[in-house]
């Protein structure tokens, strides 16, 4: 588990690495424009498009910075006649579980929110996970986005502390929290490991941070 400051420093470092990488998905740090109380400063964010015509291969475009105030101008116009679903993924720190949590929502090109069933059709691996764990211990639920306060879906974090302990024990990063930049390194390592577990259910590739580090 990590503290909020380690999460934010790691997340900003990850976003910085992503900005130097080619290809997708490109995560970036979205600063909260309404930091009025002890709210989090922001979250990691990425956009993802699912093309419903599976024969079409279009390059994913790098997202632009967008204000967290639901700016629809961030959506790119697509060639007409292509059905697609636009997804936003946010990584937000949970103060209760002290781990990152993946939040997401889907929309049609005209901004209509996608229902739960439609979302599960877009992500077959997620659908299997949801079918395995439903009812009182659901894998995915809807709730109020902690920063935007609108309805989003999220992947339940209750298993995260357990699987992350196991994962990090095996990795044994030296001097994780020692010295200058220790918090950032710990946060970054945590996020990269965590991505490798949660992102595959959505067909997303974790960013290749090692390459980005080597490139500097």
């Amino acid at each position, binding site marked *: *588990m990590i503290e909020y400051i380690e999460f934010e420093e790691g997340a900003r470092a990850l976003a910085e690495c992503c900005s130097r990488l080619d290809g997708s998905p490109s995560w970036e740090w979205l600063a909260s424009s309404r930091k*009025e*109380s*002890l*709210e989090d400063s922001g979250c990691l964010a990425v956009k993802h498009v699912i093309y419903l015509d599976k024969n079409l291969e279009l390059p994913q475009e790098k997202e632009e910075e967008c204000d967290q105030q639901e700016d629809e101008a961030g959506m790119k116009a697509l060639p007409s006649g292509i059905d697609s679903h636009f997804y936003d993924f946010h990584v937000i720190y*949970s*103060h*209760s*579980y002290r781990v990152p949590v993946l939040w997401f929502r889907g929309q049609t090109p005209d901004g209509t*929110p996608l*229902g*739960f069933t439609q979302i599960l059709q877009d992500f077959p691996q997620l659908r299997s996970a949801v079918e395995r764990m*439903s*009812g*009182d*211990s*659901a894998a995915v*639920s*809807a*709730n*109020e986005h*902690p920063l*935007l*306060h*609108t*309805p989003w879906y999220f992947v*339940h974090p*209750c298993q995260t*502390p*357990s699987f992350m302990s196991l994962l990090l024990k095996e990795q044994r990063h030296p001097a994780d929290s020692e010295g200058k930049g220790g918090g950032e390194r710990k946060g970054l390592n945590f996020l990269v490991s965590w991505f490798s577990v949660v992102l595959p259910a959505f067909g997303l590739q974790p960013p290749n941070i090692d390459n980005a580090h080597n490139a500097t």
Partner: protein
Amino acid sequence: MDNSNPTMRMLMKTWESKISIRISLAANDVSCPNLPLPMMVMLPRYGFLQTVADKAFQSFERALISKHDYTPYFEYNGLPLPWQVPLGSLYDLLADDQSPWRLIIRFPSAMPPALLPWIRSDSEKNFDLGPLRSVLFSSLKEAAFICRGVDGSNDMNMMEVGKRDSLWESVVKVDWAGYNNWIESMDMNPLNRRAQEALPRIPIRIFHRKGKSVSDWSADVKSMSRPISVQEDGRSPTLGEALNDIFPELVFEEEQNDGGGLLGDELMRSTELSEDGDCEPSSKDQVFSQSVAIVCGIQPPLATPLAWLHYNMHAPDFFLYIIVKPRNPFHRVESGSVGSGGGC
């Protein structure tokens, strides 16, 4: 359980506390020329509006234009009310002590986009409370993790179906005895040092209303789950200390203890505070810019230990709900009458 224990009596009273509600249909949902008479109900503070939706549907069915596959929700002054928030918290946040609280019920085919979707299992054709149950267990699991770490959330995941069903029944009916049995078996006291990695934490949920009214929940209300850590010496932070950490820019009004109400008296006795209830004279500007913190319809003294507040006034999901809103200088919050805001 020792019924003569004053703190147990306090938590029971919190559970027994009710709010008076008047439920009407909207004119544009009605097929006949005259609006049916509103329905009057008394609902527990720690209940949920959705639990009365089915009864309202049966009461209003004949007048409705469309009656199939409905997903009910409630509205106050045009604002759709989040169905996952306990009634008492919504009331304290929004109603400004209106009594009875006048709400509209709507029966669309799906929840409006402003509210959480009502994801029901395919097999259910009629309205059932499955999604509310999911929210409750998700919250309970979160509180269990805060209090007991991984053991807490695992115990929740592993709980057998029969026990979960009876817990759910107790919550829906706001049945104190059934719920208390469950709580004792889960050993959820946040002050037990079960989570060995860090200091014990108290599950808190805060709803903050910045302005005079709420017309758009996502813009005008900020909600957060913020576990508050006990100090290293084992002392619980006070309500005032926690609020100053979370809202450093707000000034909180100290509770005006005019000695009224059974709940308020118990609060004062139990916290063993001094009798000095004087507040410092404040300028007119200060009075208008102050905020208040409300728990279960009362304004606890800022010196109240948060652990005590949680132990005596937590909701069924084991979170303590705190409402923060601007002080209305023309409108006093009842300091401690049982069932405040709802009549008798």
